[in-house]
Each structure stands twice: as structure tokens, then as C-alpha cells.
């Protein structure tokens, strides 16, 4: 089935565009079709054929599907450059979206969504509405994706027209492919929105798990990837999810397998039964190994992911190291990753075999790979104490081969081994010294010099060796010069004889007078001063015992690792970087950047942003609200520099803000005082990740502010969305900007009591049960010395207003004991016992909660409530 389309690429001598124009308007169908093909061919090779817009669009009304597709393709490419003419196509689109043939209906919505012209977008809404409810699943699945397209162009429109709801309805569609595409679209929309739009509930969960069994392989990937955001409510649910996902490990599609592994690993966090966990690990190993029989590109992705997985759960592949041995024909990028994993899996049990492999690799031809293999031997030596000696003997064998770069690499790693096991393997120094004159790379040279200096007392001819390096001192790179300097000082301190004395004079002279490298000069002066004032002190400093180094092959810290594991199979896991590091969060980022840049250029105050940041950063106040004086130059968009600008530059703008809870909803109560001489508008706000996952639930609505005016806004907030890992703290970092001024940054505190829910009231019995069921080490208490309870009833009422609910009270001696409960989302309860004597300062607060980490924040909140 071979076509002959290449003929369309050929051109005639007569002006091409006029000729095409003529043909496009021909009365013969076939000629028109050929002409459109020629236009597309020209477009393909990058010629500008946008001037034919009207003529091509005229061909759009056709029964011929192929021709229609070509015209649509043309439209996608050129509509943006001819937005006014693009309107011409709308009628046909709308008509096509009602065609009896589902293929054409789908084609019409699909294409309309790709035309990123505002005017067209409005006309897209009605057809899209219809197509989302189409009888044919092929049309519905196309329409589902189209909602995401529209959201990308005009999010507001999508929300206003209720497309999000329609999309959510599609999750219950009876066709699995439609479900999968709806999930993909919703997940994308969620990614670009701060509000919760697509949250998987236990109800949707079961629908997704059912669709998983029936949709195409790509659809399965969408569903699995969206499930990775779902946090199971309890162990049972986690086990259930795992059970439903595990069969996917048998799928022939590697992406399905990797995404299934991701879900299982995530849910395993919740599962406590060691048997279940062990069993799951056993189940995951074979599919992971089989990924290494896939195409090399996929192997690469798999290996990058396995690298993460073995860091988290080393047991899974502990016995499979052999599958990571390199094959002769593996591409180099696969070999490099395999090597990395071999180091991670190397253990006392398999090290002999691993070393044999490394040795084999070290004699291959690819220089980078060989170097990495040599380095790998060194890293194993550092990691496995009992194998160190064997590693070193392999390194020595390699040095004897006398391949220049192998020798140099070996010396570099041997230096590390010496640092890891001081005073153990010095006997090999003699062998190392044999290769002295072949060293030409700075790092290798520096390593060798370090070794000589460090062990100067055991090397008889250390002075001669160093002297040979000294001849070329001025020409050496800084790295080597620094080492030479230090090594000479060490030698002198260890053997204060005449030879070294002269050497040190020469070196210090060289390193102070004849260099322009400040690091080197400073170090030389320090040594000089030390040596001339107190040689004993110099010994203490220069010959001090160095801390022992450790293996760095498990280098990712655990919170980053967890972050990456939640992103298995994605680019994030390939780069070993969190998505934020390489994805601009707002999808229209490139455009926005341009605008910002343009703004800055217009104002003519190019340095003002940094000033603003310095002036406003980071001041935090102890209370629950922050008052931030913001010093701003009057960055009015005046085309000419304002002569008064410098005088007026210290105007004060003030932002004060506070988190509050009203009617069960959390708001950021924020007010602005415009202390500048300009109208401020276009306010925007952004919150950094924080313990409670507090983020803006919508855009900040502040009207343009006249100079001297103030404004106040209640910004609805969402919580527990994008939680920052690490120990809980109440820090809330906020950035506010407007169109006139650079970004203001400030720190606020999150008062925990805003999260106390209306559902926090407990019955007496359940309170007692809960209190008893929690172990005693979950109980904490604290004195609020400054708090006074003047009336029990008033206190109860006051606390109830903040959703701390009264349960019971009793008298104990002269003190009153109050029992209360509160609850923050995610079902974390606080069982509270307040002890105080009425009217006497000092309230003792005891609390029991399953979540110990939150206790400190809880006390903070209670103390502020009792003030």
C-alpha cells in the first residue's frame, strides 16, 4: 500500500501561489483535491501558504472525507495567523458537528478544539455540548479531550458553561474509552488549576477500577496515573486497590506495568501487614525484570525508575542483580544506568561476581563507560567494608594494564578509599607511584598529590615526588595548585628537614606573589601565618583527623524520593527531579513570561524588583496576622523617568492578612493600603507549599486601588491540597503581586484552629473510648501561664465558636476540669482536657491525639484561643 504523494512536493516554474490559487478554485473536484494536497505539501516543507486561506477554506464543504481532513489540517496551522478569516470556517464546523457520520462529528470537534482563536472558541461551545452527549462513544471520547483543549484556551468559559460537570458525568459513562479520556482531561485540568476540580472519591474509584479492565492500553495508563493521586482511606481500601491493580503487572504494555507498579508502591505505604508487603514485593520483581527485555529507550526509562525503587525497597530486586549485567550491544545510556543499579544492589553476597563484571567493563572501549566502571569499583569498596580489599586488588590489576584513563580514574577512587579506611591500605602506594608520570588530568593529579601529602611519612621519596610536580606549579590548574600547596605543607610538618623547607618557601612564594587566584593566595597566606607563628597549631590544623566519608550511592533524600516514586514512569522519575523543577506550572507560562518581561522593560525601573524583594522580605510577626510594610519605589508605568521618583520612593504600602474560618469555609482575610502615588490593579496571590496544604481556592479579587485607598478581600481557600512534606510547622509563605509593583513576599502563620471542623463534636462515650484506645505516650500537656478562665460558660461558648466542643466537666479540688474535642480534616481528632481554677492565671491543657506531630501546633492554637 504505497502512495505517490511525493509528486505534490514538486513545483512548477510559474509562480506557485497564483497557480495553486487557480487550481483551488477549479470546478473539478479532483483538481481541487490535488491542489489542497499541494498546499499541504508546501506547508509541510515550511513554505508560507497562509495567503491561500480563503481559497482553501472554500474547499471545506465537501463530502470527501480525505479532502475535509486536509482542509482541517490547514486550518489548525494557519487559523492563528488569520483569525478574522477563520470565522469563515465556523459554519462548516458547526454543520459537520451534526453530520450523521460519527467520524465527521468527531473530526469537527477535535479540529475546532485545536484552533486556538478566541472567536472560534465561542462557537465551539454548543457543538461541544452536543457531542459530550452524543450516542456514539467515538464522538464522546473525542469531546472529552476537547474540554481539556478548551480549558487550555479559556478556562472561564469551560466553567461557566458547565463543561466540568459534563466531563465528570462521563466518568460514569458505560464506555471504558470515554471514561479513560475523561479522566485524562480532568487530570490535566486539575493540574493547571489551584481549586479542587477532580477529586477521586471512593465512588469514582470503583468506577475507574472497573473501566481499567476494559479500556485500551493507553486508557489504562491514564486511569492508573490518575489513581496515583488517590490516598486510600484505610488499609482495607489500600489492599483492595492493590488487588485490583496487580493483574496489570501481566500486561504486555510496559507503560501499564510501570504505572501499576507505581500504584502498588504508593498503596504499600499504608499496608502494615509484613506478609502482604513481602508478597507484593515478590510479585513486582519479575515484571520489573522483564522490562529489561523491552526496547532500549524503554529500558532506559525503566532503569531510571528501578534506580528509585531499589532505594525505597531494596529487597524487591536484591536477588536479581545479574539481570543488570551489561550486554555487549546495549546502548551506552542503558549501560550507564545498569552500572548505577549494580552499585546499589552490590552486597557482600554478590560482590565477587559484580567485581568480575566491572573489571570486564573497565577494559571496554567507550571511555566514559570505562571510567564509570572504575569509579563503580571504588564506590563498592566504600560501601562494603568487607569487600574493600578485593575491590582494591581489582583496581591494582587495572592499573597494571596501563591504559591511561583507567589509571587516572583508579587513582581518584583510591584516594576516596583511603579517606574511608584510613591507615589500612597504604601498602599499595608504591604501586600507585609507578604511574606518576602518566597523570595528566587535574583530578587524578590532585588525588595523587593528596595521597602523597597525606602519607608523606611513609613514602621515602615523598619530597622528590612532590618536587617533580612543583616544577610546573604555575601552569597547573587551580585544583592541582591547591593540593600541591597543602601537600607541601603536610610534608614539611611531617619531615621538617632542609629539602621540604626549601620547597615550602618556593611554593608559598609561588602561591602568594605569582598568582591571581584568590583562593590559592588566601590559603597560602593562612598556612604561612600559621607556620611562622605556631607550627604546633599548624599541625593541629593541617594534619587534623578528617571525618570518614561514606558511600553516596543512595543519595536522594527520603522526601524527594517519595515525591519521585509518586511520579514513577513520568519524566520526573527519569530526571530524578520533582515536576516543579522542569515544568512551568501555569501552562501559558511562555506567554506570561513574555508579558512580564515587556512590563519590566516599559517601566524603566529594571532594578526595582530586587529592591522590592529586599524591602519586604521576609518579615514575620508572632501573632496570627502579619503587617508588612512594603517599601516600594513608585513604579508607575511612566514612559519618562519621574524626577520626583527618588524622593517619593519610600512610600508605604501595607498588607495585612489573616486566615479565618467562616461558615465552615476557610478564607484569607487580606487588606491592602495603597501608599503609593499610583493606581494599583491586577492583584494576584500565590501560596507556597505548607504543612496544611493551604492554597488559594480562586483568584484574588481586588478592585483597582486609587492612591491612598485601601481595599479588603476575603479569599476563599482550600486546604490539604498540595501538602509539603517534612515536620509540621505553621509557616505560610505568601507572594502578592500587582501590575505596577514587583512581587511582595511575606511569611504568615497558620493558626491551626481554623481547621477545626464543625463535625468535631464527640459523644461522651465515644470520647471515653477514644481516650482509652490511644496509648499514653500520645498524651501531651502544657501550661498556658498567661491564660485566665474567668467564667466556665463563657469559655465553653467562646471555644465552641471555634469548633472546640465541650463534652463534660468535673471538679477536682479547687480546680475545674473540662473535657472537649476538636477535629481537623483527614479525621485527626484532638481529645482535650483543660484544668484551671476560675479567675486564677494558668491553664493546664492536656491533649491526646493519634497524630503526635501536630501537637505543638495544636497547643499554639489553643493558647491563642484562650487569650
Amino acid at each position: 500500500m504505497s502512495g505517490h504523494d511525493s509528486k505534490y512536493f514538486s513545483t512548477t516554474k510559474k509562480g506557485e501561489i497564483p497557480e495553486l490559487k487557480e487550481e483551488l478554485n477549479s470546478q473539478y473536484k479532483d483538481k481541487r483535491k490535488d491542489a489542497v494536497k499541494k498546499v499541504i505539501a508546501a506547508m509541510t516543507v515550511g513554505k508560507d501558504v497562509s495567503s491561500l486561506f480563503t481559497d482553501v477554506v472554500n474547499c471545506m464543504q465537501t463530502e470527501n472525507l480525505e479532502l475535509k481532513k486536509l482542509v482541517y489540517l490547514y486550518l489548525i496551522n494557519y487559523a492563528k495567523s488569520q483569525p478574522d478569516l477563520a470565522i469563515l470556517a465556523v459554519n462548516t464546523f458547526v454543520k459537520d458537528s451534526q453530520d450523521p457520520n460519527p467520524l465527521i462529528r468527531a473530526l469537527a470537534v477535535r479540529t475546532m478544539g485545536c484552533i486556538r482563536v478566541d472567536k472560534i472558541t465561542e462557537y465551539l461551545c454548543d457543538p461541544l455540548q452536543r457531542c459530550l452527549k452524543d450516542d456514539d462513544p467515538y464522538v464522546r471520547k473525542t469531546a472529552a479531550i476537547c474540554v481539556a483543549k478548551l480549558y487550555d484556551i479559556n478556562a472561564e468559559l469551560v466553567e461557566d458553561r458547565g463543561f466540568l460537570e459534563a466531563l465528570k458525568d462521563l466518568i460514569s459513562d458505560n464506555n471504558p474509552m470515554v471514561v479513560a479520556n475523561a479522566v485524562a482531561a480532568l487530570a490535566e485540568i486539575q493540574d493547571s488549576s489551584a481549586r479542587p476540580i477532580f477529586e477521586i472519591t471512593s465512588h469514582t474509584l470503583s468506577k475507574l477500577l472497573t473501566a481499567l479492565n476494559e479500556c485500551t492500553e493507553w486508557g489504562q495508563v491514564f486511569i492508573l496515573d490518575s489513581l496515583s493521586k488517590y490516598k486510600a482511606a484505610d488499609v482495607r481500601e489500600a489492599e483492595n486497590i492493590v488487588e485490583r491493580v496487580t493483574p496489570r503487572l501481566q500486561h504486555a504494555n510496559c507503560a501499564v506495568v510501570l504505572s501499576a507498579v507505581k500504584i502498588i508502591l504508593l498503596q504499600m505505604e499504608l499496608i502494615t501487614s509484613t506478609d502482604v508487603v513481602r508478597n507484593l514485593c515478590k510479585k513486582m520483581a519479575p515484571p520489573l525484570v522483564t522490562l529489561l527485555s523491552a526496547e532500549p529507550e524503554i529500558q532506559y526509562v525503566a532503569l531510571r525508575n528501578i534506580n528509585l525503587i531499589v532505594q525505597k525497597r531494596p529487597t524487591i530486586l536484591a536477588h536479581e542483580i545479574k539481570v543488570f549485567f551489561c550486554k555487549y550491544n546495549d546502548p551506552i545510556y542503558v549501560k550507564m544506568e545498569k552500572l548505577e543499579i549494580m552499585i546499589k544492589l552490590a552486597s557482600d553476597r554478590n560482590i565477587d561476581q559484580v567485581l568480575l563484571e566491572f573489571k570486564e567493563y573497565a577494559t571496554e572501549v567507550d571511555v566514559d563507560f570505562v571510567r564509570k566502571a572504575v569509579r563503580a569499583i571504588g564506590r563498592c569498596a566504600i560501601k562494603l567494608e568487607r569487600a574493600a580489599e578485593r575491590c582494591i586488588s581489582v583496581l591494582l590489576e587495572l592499573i597494571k594494564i596501563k591504559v591511561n584513563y583507567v589509571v587516572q580514574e583508579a587513582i581518584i577512587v583510591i584516594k576516596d578509599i583511603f579517606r574511608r579506611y584510613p591507615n589500612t591500605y597504604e601498602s599499595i602506594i608504591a604501586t600507585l607511584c609507578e604511574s606518576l608520570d602518566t597523570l595528566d588530568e587535574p583530578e587524578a593529579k590532585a588525588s595523587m598529590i593528596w595521597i602523597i601529602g597525606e602519607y608523606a611519612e611513609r613514602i621515602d621519596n615523598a619530597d622528590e615526588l612532590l618536587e617533580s610536580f612543583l616544577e610546573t606549579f604555575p601552569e597547573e590548574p587551580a585544583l592541582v595548585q591547591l593540593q600541591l600547596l597543602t601537600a607541601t605543607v603536610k610534608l614539611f610538618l611531617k619531615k621538617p628537614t632542609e629539602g621540604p623547607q626549601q620547597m615550602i618557601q618556593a611554593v608559598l612564594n609561588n602561591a602568594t606573589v605569582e598568582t591571581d587566584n584568590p583562593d590559592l593566595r588566601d590559603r597560602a597566606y593562612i598556612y604561612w601565618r600559621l607556620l611562622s607563628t605556631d607550627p604546633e597549631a599548624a599541625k593541629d590544623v593541617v594534619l587534623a583527623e578528617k571525618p570518614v566519608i561514606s558511600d553516596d550511592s543512595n543519595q536522594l533524600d527520603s522526601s524527594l524520593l517519595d515525591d519521585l516514586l509518586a511520579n514513577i514512569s513520568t519524566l520526573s522519575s527519569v530526571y530524578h527531579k520533582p515536576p516543579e523543577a522542569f515544568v512551568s506550572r501555569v501552562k501559558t507560562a511562555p506567554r506570561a513570561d513574555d508579558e512580564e518581561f515587556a512590563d519590566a522593560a516599559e517601566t524603566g525601573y529594571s532594578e526595582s524588583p530586587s529592591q522590592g524583594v529586599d524591602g519586604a522580605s521576609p518579615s514575620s510577626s508572632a501573632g496570627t496576622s502579619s503587617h508588612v510594610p512594603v517599601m516600594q519605589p513608585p513604579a508607575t508605568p511612566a514612559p519618562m523617568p519621574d524626577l520626583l521618583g527618588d524622593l517619593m520612593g519610600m512610600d508605604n504600602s501595607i498588607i495585612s492578612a489573616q486566615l479565618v474560618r467562616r461558615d465552615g469555609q476557610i478564607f484569607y482575610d487580606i487588606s491592602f493600603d495603597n501608599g503609593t502615588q499610583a493606581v494599583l490593579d491586577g492583584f494576584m496571590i500565590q501560596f507556597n507549599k505548607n504543612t496544611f496544604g493551604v492554597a488559594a481556592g480562586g483568584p484574588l479579587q481586588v478592585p483597582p486601588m486609587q492612591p491612598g485607598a485601601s481595599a479588603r478581600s476575603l479569599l476563599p481557600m482550600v486546604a490539604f491540597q498540595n501538602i509539603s512534606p517534612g515536620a509540621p510547622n505553621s509557616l505560610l509563605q505568601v507572594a502578592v503581586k500587582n501590575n505596577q509593583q514587583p512581587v511582595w513576599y511575606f511569611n504568615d502563620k497558620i493558626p491551626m484552629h481554623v481547621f477545626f471542623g464543625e463535625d468535631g463534636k464527640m459523644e461522651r462515650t465515644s470520647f471515653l473510648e477514644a481516650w482509652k484506645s490511644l496509648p499514653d505516650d500520645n498524651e501531651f500537656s502544657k501550661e498556658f501561664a498567661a491564660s485566665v478562665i474567668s467564667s466556665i460558660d463563657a469559655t465553653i461558648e467562646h471555644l465552641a465558636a471555634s469548633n472546640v466542643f465541650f463534652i463534660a466537666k468535673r471538679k477536682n479540688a479547687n480546680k475545674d476540669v473540662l473535657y472537649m474535642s476538636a477535629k481537623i480534616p483527614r479525621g485527626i481528632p484532638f481529645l482535650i482536657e483543660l484544668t484551671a481554677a476560675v479567675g486564677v492565671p494558668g491553664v493546664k491543657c492536656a491533649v491526646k491525639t493519634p497524630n503526635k506531630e501536630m501537637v505543638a501546633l495544636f497547643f499554639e492554637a489553643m493558647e491563642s484561643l484562650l487569650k
Partner: protein
Amino acid sequence: MAGAVSALFLLDIKGRVLVWRDYRGDVSALQAERFFTKLLDKEGDSESHSPVVYDDAGVTYMFIQHNNVFLLTASRQNCNAASILLFLHRVVDVFKHYFEELEEESLRDNFVVVYELLDEMMDFGYPQYTEAKILSEFIKTDAYRMEVSQRPPMAVTNAVSWRSEGIRYKKNEVFLDVVESVNILVNSNGQIVRSDVVGALKMRTYLSGMPECKLGLNDRVLLEAQGRATKGKAIDLDDIKFHQCVRLARFENDRTISFIPPDGSFDLMTYRLSTQVSLLLVIYSYWMLKIPEMHYLVPLFSCLSLFDVLKVKPLIWVEAQIEKHSRSRIELMVKARSQFKERSTATNVEIEVPVPSDSTNPNIRTSMGSAAYAPERDAMVWKVKSFPGGKEYMCRAEFSLPSITAEEAAPEKKAPIRVKFEIPYFTVSGIQVRYLKIIEKSGYQALPWVRYITMAGEYELRLT
């Protein structure tokens, strides 16, 4: 984590755009082209660069190469890398189905269909549909194009997305090939570093309607669950992967392999056996072949000492002695031994022994088959058409070497000896198809045909 690609490029060998499809309008073709050509220039060959690269402008490029064409995606999001790279391979498969071969020429010749396919296979940067056979029902090349407007086949959105309804055959037949590839890596000291077997059940179906198939294997887990005597007849498969037509949940539940097959050829399942297991099984099938009536002998071996007593035997063992006489000539003596039973025969055996790249004047003698110098592979290739079990053949060769060399000669590539062979009617694993039931509502009788073959996969023996 949602993530879609922004555009898909088909580039020529120099990295110039042949055809591209912009899915999201947020990357530029010019930039992509510039970035990629620079990458190619810098690296020399594409092999050396990882298939996922990030440029500073926030765009990730992922690519694969096929013949003289690069398939490249550009993305600004955190997309699913495994899924996208696999998708690119599927795109290649689809193009191959359409144009027989995917290369620069065939893309130019069919750019209209290429655009149509790119539109159908991916939407807004999300992979949609890659079943070549079904796609070709509604996207046709010129020769087959009909004026009547086509409709999307039901299969595109059906739960059974790989098979169309209304297929008819006069004679209903199924061919099942059990193909096992033996991968082995032997160290220069003769020690087996790793060996595994990758098996595939390759099916060709010519069946009418919507047939329900059920496949029975001598799978130990299944047989034990059914309470049948296993008597060493059953096998353990390490990792099984199924074509998407197989109901995975059902397999997970009761180990039944049930499916509605696609039309034509496909890989129904693949499996893998790792070293220790295949060790047992080599021996096992070895016995089975010789004395099939003496099954009871097998349990005798099933004690722990098995590992010590019986060493793994690669099916074909090759030893090479290479003697380099200073810089004048090199002498090779290669011994090949078949270590399986006499009643089996390996066919198309090909043994590739590396020789220095500047060798000349080959002088080769063999005791069986023929050997020749293949300078383009820097190797001597020895071919034996038929190699019965339990035999040993020899090959001697002598090459001249130039007496002078460049002073700083690059180190010689240390290529291993590589072996290719096929052994029909034989599997290493001992896998057996117990039955293949085909039920269709019209009630026709279908004939299943089963064949077994073992072949060399990556069969490498390192040289000292």
C-alpha cells in the same frame, strides 16, 4: 499526573523535519529542529544519547530511531515517559503496516495518510489508538480509498478494541508457535554469568466472528490448583505478559487464559525463565526427550543436590583459542559442541568469532559447514546448516595482520563470540500446550496447529 506531548515530529537522519503534527501549539518546530540537529552533531551517533533530553527552554524531547527516520516528541509537561516512548514504537508499527517499511521515502510518498494517522493515533498529545489493523479499516491509502464516507469501526471504542466484527473465513484455523529464545552470557573464564529464556506464544488466527478462546498450558500453579498430579510435568513460568486481549483479572483469579483474539498474527503471551529454573528444566527436558515413558525418573532429581551435581549446559558451547603472533598473523581454533540430545538437531547455526579489524588473507578450514571472513562485522562467520545433538565440530583459521600500526591505536573493541541457531520441535522450558479451545456462537470447528522451536537470543561468550 497528567501529561501530554505538545508535538510529534518525523525527522530525517540529519534531524530535519519531514512531517510534524502540532498538538498543543506551545512548541516551535524550528526550535525543535535546531535543538535536535545540534544534539546529533554533538553526539555523532544517536546511540550514545539517552532518549530523553531536556533543553533549557523547558521542553523535553523524547525520540527513537527507525531506519533513516527519527520520531521525536516535544513536551512541556511531566508526561508519562514510558507510555510516550512505547507509543512512538507503536507509531512505527502502524506505519510499517501501512507502508511496508518506514523510511524517509515512504513518509514523503504518503504524507496525507501520515497526517491522518497522526490525527487519529494521538489527540491533544494523549495517545489514543494504535491498532494498525483496525485503523486501516477507516483510514486508507489512495489505492484503497473509496468515495463512500467511512465510519469509525466499532472496535475503536469497544471493550474489544483489537477486533472488528463480521470477519469471515471459509476455513477456520489457528496457528500457534511456541518460540523460546535462549539468552546466555558466558564470562571469559567459561563461567555462565547469566542465562535466561524468553518465550513467546505467537499466534496467527484465521477465525470467523467473535471467537472465545481458552488456552491450557502445563502451568504448575494451575495444575496444582486443580488438584492434578504434577509429577514433574508442570512448569513454573517466572513472569508472564499477555497481549491486551487476555482477561488479566480472570488469569489472576483462576489462572485461566481466556481471550477474544485479534485477527491475524500477534504475540499472545511472553514469559521468562531465569537461570536456576531453566537449569532444572534443561535437564528435565533432556530426560523427557530421551525416555518419555519414564517420567517417574524425574522426581529422583528433585532434591537440593541437583544444583551441585548438574551444571547448566548451554545448548551450544563454543570455545575459541586465539593466538596472536606479534603483528604478523593471528590463528584461530574454534570448537563448537552441541549439548542437547541426538534426536534433536539445531539448524542454521551461525557462529561469529571476532577478529581484528585490520585482518587480511583469511585461510579457513572447517570440519563441517562453511566459514568466511566478514570484514564488515570484523568477524569470521562460521555457518553450519544442520548440527545434530551430541556432536563437536572444529574450525581453524589464519589471518594476516599488517606489520605496522598507528602509534596511538585505539584499543580494540572486545566483542564476544555470538551464536545463532534454531532447534525445532524442542523447548528448553518444557512448556506444553495442553489444549486450545475455540468457541464461537456459530459453532464452527476450528483447527489449532501448534509448533515448538527454540532459538538463540542474545547468546554471547566473552573472550579473554
